[in-house]
Each structure stands twice: as C-alpha cells, then as structure tokens.
C-alpha cells in the first residue's frame, strides 16, 4: 500500500493536505480517489450501478421515485459540484477555517465525534448529495481518502458496494497503525 498526495505539502512538519491510498499498486496503480473519480464520471459504471438498484430508486420516496437515467444525471451534476469543491480547496487553501478540509469532512458516525484522531470522516458535495468520499484524519489538516461511492440507503451496511468501502477504511487504518502513523489523539474516520 502507498500513500499518494492529491494536493498536499509533504515537506511541512507535520505534512498537510489531502492524500489518498493506492491499496495494491501491482494490481491497480490508481489511488482510491482516482478510482472514485473514474467511477463517478463513467457512464457504464453508473448505468450498471443504478440498474442494479432500479427497483429501490424507482420506489423510494426519499429519492423522489426517479428513473435510472435521472439518477445518473443527478449523480453527474453532484460529481461536477464535488470537482469544483475539491479544486477550489486545492487552490484556495486546505487550512482555511471556512473552506478548508476541516470544514468539508464530517465524522462518519456520531460515535466518531469525540474521537480526536484517526477519525473516519465523510464529505459530500451538498446537503442533499448522495455522493460520499470517505477519509481518515491522521492529524490536523492531514486527510487520507480511502474511497467513496453513492449512498442510497440509510446505512452503509445495507449496500454491498459501500460495505467494501467500510472494509477499506479499516484496511487503511490498520496499515497506518502498522506504520506508526497513528496518533491516538488525532485519528478520525470522516465522510464528505
């Protein structure tokens, strides 16, 4: 496993910025942020994803009972919002209190709120967005993206795809612990 800087200052002490992980470089050289980016902009991936969940999105009042094509278009719009947010973040400052990483990533679950370090975090492009980016906060302004996806169901455990994302968060967490990049006061699981 390798850590890939997305936009980061690796010379700074401690390092700052957004990183990702390449879980198995011999199998796939792409980092998890790149894989998410590829999936969210891939018509074939999105079509297969929503076709498999067609019955759910077509009947679910929370999602407005939409068609597969509508779900794909909604995802595409959200994807471009996400690109804009991360691009602005890279250009305007990762440490900004209003626009910085600390502002866009939120704890993955309520139980993570009071865990100061290696917190699992999530980030999303807007309040109603169903796109998720999962990350671990290693230290203040040091975030590692472990994956992401489209969250249609209330819990990640209800969707096979997101269950694999949960497993990846754990995998990366173990890797960081093994490599002593673990500060019990700062580790946090996050979500965009």
């Amino acid at each position, binding site marked *: 496993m390798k850590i*890939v*800087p997305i*936009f980061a200052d690796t010379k700074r002490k401690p390092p700052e910025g957004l990183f990702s992980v*390449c879980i198995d470089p011999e199998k796939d*050289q792409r980092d998890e942020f790149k894989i998410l980016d590829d999936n969210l902009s891939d*018509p074939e991936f999105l*079509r297969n994803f929503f076709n498999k969940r067609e019955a759910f999105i077509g009947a679910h009042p929370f999602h407005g009972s939409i068609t597969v094509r509508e779900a794909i278009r909604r995802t595409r719009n959200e994807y471009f919002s996400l690109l*804009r947010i991360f691009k602005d973040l890279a250009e305007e400052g990762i440490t900004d209190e209003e626009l910085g990483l600390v502002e866009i990533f939120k704890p993955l679950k309520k139980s993570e709120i009071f865990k100061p370090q290696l917190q699992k975090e999530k980030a999303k492009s807007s309040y109603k967005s169903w796109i998720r980016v999962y990350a671990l906060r290693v*230290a203040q302004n040091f975030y590692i993206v472990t994956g992401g996806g489209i969250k249609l169901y209330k819990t990640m455990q209800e969707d096979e795809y997101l269950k694999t994302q949960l497993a990846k968060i754990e995998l990366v967490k173990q890797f960081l612990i093994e490599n*002593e990049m673990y500060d019990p006061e700062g580790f946090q699981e996050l979500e965009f």
Partner: protein
Amino acid sequence: MPIENFNKKLDKVLSKKKSDFLESASFQLDNRAWLDMSFEIALNILDVLEAKGWTQKQLAEKLGVSPQQVSKIVKGKENLRLSTISKLEAVLETELIYVANSEKEVERSISQSLDVFGLFLDSVIPKSSKAPKLKSSGSSFQMKENTSSKGKVVKLSTVDDNFAKGA
C-alpha cells in the same frame, strides 16, 4: 501527543507517482459542455447495445474499429467527430444526437433563448428603468419587447423591418 518523526514515516510509504486530480478536474470543469454531450451519447449507445443484445466487441466489429476505441467512446470522454457519430448511428440504426435541420427550428430555438433572456431582464431591471427597445450597436438586429395576450415575449427583428414600419 504529536506523531514523532511523522515526515520520515510518511516518506517510507509515500508514492512516487503524482496524482493528476487537479489537471483532470480543471479539464472536466472547463470542457463540461461537450463532455456532457459525449456522456449522453455514451449512455444512448449502452442502452441500444443492451436492447439489441450486442456486446461492445460486436459493435467494434460492425464499425470496423478496435474494441479499445468503442471502450473509449462509452467512457463518455471522447470528443467525437460528426463522421464518427454518423457511422455509429448507421450501425446502431438509432439517432444518437439531434440537430436542428430547418430555418423554422433554428428560429424557434433563438426565440426560446430570447424568451429566457427577456425573463432574466424582467428579473434584474427595475420596471421604471426598462427601455422598451434595445438596439445593439453595430448589429443589424434589434430586440423588441412585445406584449401579447400570451404575455411578454422578446422577438428578434431586423433593423430594416423597423425602418419599413417607420420605427
């Protein structure tokens, strides 16, 4: 407690490969208009392939191109030439994009755009300061505000027409 020798520990696991996210994001944001079209065409192709029960490989054979080329097209990031779209339409026996093909349709499209522009003007210009006629300098066209029973519309007419009417 801060992590000791954090930078040294990071260096051990840091990839030498640089992420191209920023370049890719900039490109996509700057080229969204045609990328959206390419994306929709890709979805249409995938729908037709499914309906016909064809694989991408079969489509490649019928087009006389490599499977890699078809794979690129259905990724929705190819800036497709009109000749490629025409060939795809012929092989798939489906219209993938729609092109206005008569003067009337083009006029209707312009009229719709101006209606939207008129609504925009209504929303931003106070009524008292709104001029009834807008003439763009150097252009042979004027935008004229008409009020009909159907409501307010902005229509395009030539300067010559207005001269003829004594405007």
